[in-house]
Structures are given as structure tokens and as C-alpha cells.
């Protein structure tokens, strides 16, 4: 391990009609990050963010947009009961996110970004 501390921030979708409780997942993540020596919880407007965890209440993943992913070199997307499209129970979400964050940490430095969601930009058809 190096002395490098990974700067982690949390962003929420807003949770209009969530299938999970993103606020509770966020609270647990904050607690876990604060207790992890190699990690530092920073605000979304921090100038140097290594990982942005995007917390979305449902699979629609409204928070998973380019402007948010661009905040950091790496992003992890919680969308309903899934992490980066891998389904799991809601109670497992914080641990899975932390495992992913630690994998960035183990690299000693941030690695490449998560892929953008499979979303084409074709305009809506007239009708």
C-alpha cells in the first residue's frame, strides 16, 4: 500500500420512486469510508475525486449521467438492488460498493473509469 488516500464522493439520483433506500445505503457507505484508513470522504465539488459512487433508487439510474461520472476518474453505480448491473440483495449493497472502492485502492492509484451505460443518443421520433 502507498500513502495515497482515495478521495470518494457520493451522489444521489434524488429518489423519486425508489425500490431501495439510497439514503440508508449512503449513510452506511459514509460510515465505512470514514473508518477505512486508505479512503477519504470528500464533497462532490472537491477538485480531486478518485471515485464517485452514484446512488440511484431504481434501475432507471437517473443519476448515472456523464456530468456526474465526469466528477471522478472512476464511478460505481448503485441502481436499485444492483451494483454496476450485478443484482444483489439491498443489504449487500454497501459491502459490495466498498469492495469495489477497495479494488481501486489496491491498485495504488485510480484506474480507468467504469463504462458508460448502454444508452444511445438517438433523438425521440416524431409521432
Amino acid at each position, binding site marked *: 500500500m502507498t500513502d495515497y488516500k482515495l478521495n470518494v464522493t457520493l451522489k444521489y439520483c434524488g429518489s423519486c*420512486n425508489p425500490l431501495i433506500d439510497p439514503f440508508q445505503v449512503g*449513510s452506511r457507505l459514509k460510515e465505512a469510508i470514514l473508518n477505512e484508513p486508505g479512503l477519504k470522504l470528500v464533497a462532490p465539488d472537491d477538485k480531486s475525486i478518485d471515485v464517485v459512487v452514484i446512488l440511484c433508487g431504481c434501475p*432507471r439510474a437517473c443519476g448515472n449521467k456523464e456530468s456526474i461520472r465526469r466528477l471522478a476518474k472512476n464511478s460505481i453505480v448503485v441502481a436499485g438492488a444492483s451494483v454496476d448491473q450485478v443484482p444483489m440483495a439491498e443489504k449487500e449493497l454497501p459491502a459490495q460498493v466498498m469492495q469495489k472502492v477497495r479494488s481501486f485502492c489496491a491498485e495504488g492509484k485510480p484506474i480507468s473509469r467504469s463504462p458508460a451505460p448502454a444508452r*444511445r443518443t438517438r433523438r425521440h*421520433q416524431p409521432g
Partner: protein
Amino acid sequence: MGMIRGDDYREALRRVKPEIYFMGEKIDSVADHPAFIPHVNSAALTYDMAWAPEFEELLTTKSHLTGEKINLFTHVHHSTADLVQKVKALRALGQQTGSCFARCVGHDALNALFSVTYDMDKKNGTEYHTRFIDFLKEVQKEDRFISGAMTDPKGDRSLSPSQQADPDQYVHVVKKQKDGIVVRGAKVHITGAVNALGHMVMPTTSMKEADADYAVCCYVPVDAPGLVHIFGRQTNDDRKCSGCLLDQGNPDYGIVGGEALVVFDDVFVPWKYVFMCGEYDFAFELVERFATAHRQNYGGCKVGLADVLIGATYALSEVQGTSSASHIRDKLVEMVHLAETLYCCSIACSCQGYALPAGNFMADPLLANITKLNVTRNVYEMARLAQDIAGGLLATLPSELDWGDARLGKYIDKYMKSVKDVPAEDRMRLLRLIEGMTCGTALVESMHGAGSPQAQRIMIMRRANWERKKRLAQKLAKIGEQPKLV
């Protein structure tokens, strides 16, 4: 090829030799039999409209597999814009046919299977997805109309497939061979079954390990040996074969899609067409994804039909001299309100759609089920209003044959006429159109097509976040300790 025309589709139907029965008769060619021609015409329009400059933006797209221009009904959705496009295309088709065009079911099956085969392979290391992609390319290349065959007879509803006294109440695998499988059972009220080129067979319910033989999904060509189609009766269907046109109401496209009982009497399916065989733990996923895609549709096609019904009702009110009455206007406004509410639902569940691990998109399941549940109410209410405005003649109008009689015709012309300068014939045509759209089979289709209301309620029950709603209320009512967020 990628896109064919309506006449190519009719020729393709003539080339296959499926076993089809209706009213005690074995049918030689559905493309040429009066009982089936309206259904064939309606499906043919899904092809011809794709070539029309007025509709091609809605009914065509680019294959994500080949990059070629294809008919929308062979496409796998890869964005929310794709999902919205489908709803708009269905509305446009509903407006032009005033009936069911049947291709959406197989289309939705393709979309559900694209993702479920991917998920099965990821978990089990199977090869279903690769096999399915090859099949999808085949379908896109031929622009093939396939039906979606999901609903089993189900026997005793309190028992699972494997618990039935008669094991054939659900389609199941009876033999696995080196070159394929043999399936037995039946599928009921399968839309477009007699005028499709093949059926995508899917399980109809969630399953447990004991039901593994029933967890089968496969494609069966319409003329596969052992496949028997028994076409269902519809309200006033004898008018199609009586030589009457006016009395049919919508002689070109019929009143609703044609459904059949499809019997699988030990049908062989080669492995290349098998997309699930024993993976009982994925049966529910397949049912839910198919149902979501299909329930999403109903605020598209049914609203297109509503446009026709509202137009017919409005036109009839003018012909009958009631159009300026305030209560008639109110009722017409209410019909539009009901129709556009359904459209809002379909557009909303499409916009709230999301990507699956396979990369394709599905509509929001909760909102799609809300859409369909509203259809089971709003369509009936629109029909009630249309019948209210139309008046009792809807049920008592003399027949076209008496109108054509040398002695009686003049009486019908005289006494069925209403406002000046509009012939009785116009009024009769509008009444027959409304009759077809609001009396009988067409309404039942809105209730039970894509699943009965209780099926939607079950999905809504599963998908609503009850605990969160409760906590929101408890927080405002200051019950217990709730986290303060802002």
C-alpha cells in the same frame, strides 16, 4: 433483405402449410380465406407502413446486429428512445387498422429473450444467447412475423405445472435427443397464431425445481409436424363469411386480433431453436420481462384504436344532429381524456425504461403494469360513452342484406336517415364500426390481453415500495425516530 412488403408476407403465408381448423373446416390458406383475410391485412400493414414515407420514421430502425435498416417489429430496443418509438408506432398502426395487428407479441418475446438468454449464460455457462442471436438475425433478415405463445391452459390453477393431474396442461419437454427436444401440451388464445410464420413458445409462470421440464422456451415453425391450430370464434364472425361488408364494420382489418388454441402433439424442436430447457429459476424473469414489454404496448395500440372510436363517435353525433349538445361534447372530451391518459402511461413507462446487463432496454415494470391495468378500465369506459352517444340503433340496426333488398331498402334509407344531406348509409357504416369496436371480443381483449387485471395487481404489489411509503408518512406524523435528511 431486412424488410419485406405486405404482399411478400402474404406469399410467405401461402408457402407454409400449417394445420388450421375453424368451424369444422380445415383451412387451406389463411391468406385467401374470408375468416382470416382481415387479420392478414392488419399484419400486412405492419410491413407496408414501414415502406411508406409517412410512417417509416416510426416503423423502421437500424439493426444493432447488422447495421441494416429493419422493420421495428424485429428490433431489440437499445434506448428509451427506442421504447418510446415503439409506443408511437403502435398508436399509428392502431389508427390505420382500427384493430389488432398481432406482431407486437412476438416482438416482445424477442426483446425478453435477448436479455434472459444472456443472463442464463452468464450464470450457467450455457450457449443460449449466441444461439438466440443467430435466430434473431434470421428473423431480421426475413422480416418474419412470429407469434408469442405464452399462456398455457393451466388446468387446476391451485396447482403448479408438475402437480397437475394431466401433465400436458402446461407445455413441457417429453424427450431430449441428440438433435433436439420433443414438446407436448398447448397454448391458449395465442394472438396471430394462424397468420404468423412461427411461434415463440415461453413458460407462463414462475417455476420451481420440480417444474424443470416445463421451463422450456423454443421457436416452432407454424407448419411443424404435430402442431395443430384451432381458431377461436369472435363476436359476429359469421358476418365475415356472409358476403356482407357494411355489417362487418371494419371489413378490411376486422375488430380484433385472431386468436387460436395451439396444440403441441409431440412436436420436435431442433436445438438451434431451443432457448431455455430446464432453467426453471429464469422462468419468472422471462415472464416478467415479456409481460412488461407487452403491457407497455397497450397505451399505444389501444389509443390508436381509441382515436378511431372517438372519431367515429364524433362523426356519428354530427350525422345524428347531436354534436352541439353540451353533454355530447362533455362525453367526447371525457373519451379523449381517457385515451390520452393511457398514452401518458405508455410514454412514461418507456421514458423510465432502463438498460439490462445484455445491453438492451426494458420499460419500467411498475409503470407498464399500471398502463395495462388502466387499459382494463379506460377502454371499457370509452366504449360505454361511445354506446351512450350512439344510441340504441347500435344494437337494432337492420342488416346490410335487407338494406340491399329492392322492396325494403327504401324504408331503411328513409328511416335510418337523420340530418339533411347525409345518407342513411353513412350513419349505418359508423354504427357498425362502433359496434365492432365496443361490443364483445374487442372489449374482452382489453381486459385479458397481456394478462388479466389480477396479474397486473400482483406485479404492482411486488413492485411498490410499501415500507418507504410508510416511513414517509411516519416521518411527517412524527411517529418514531426517522432520519432527518434536510
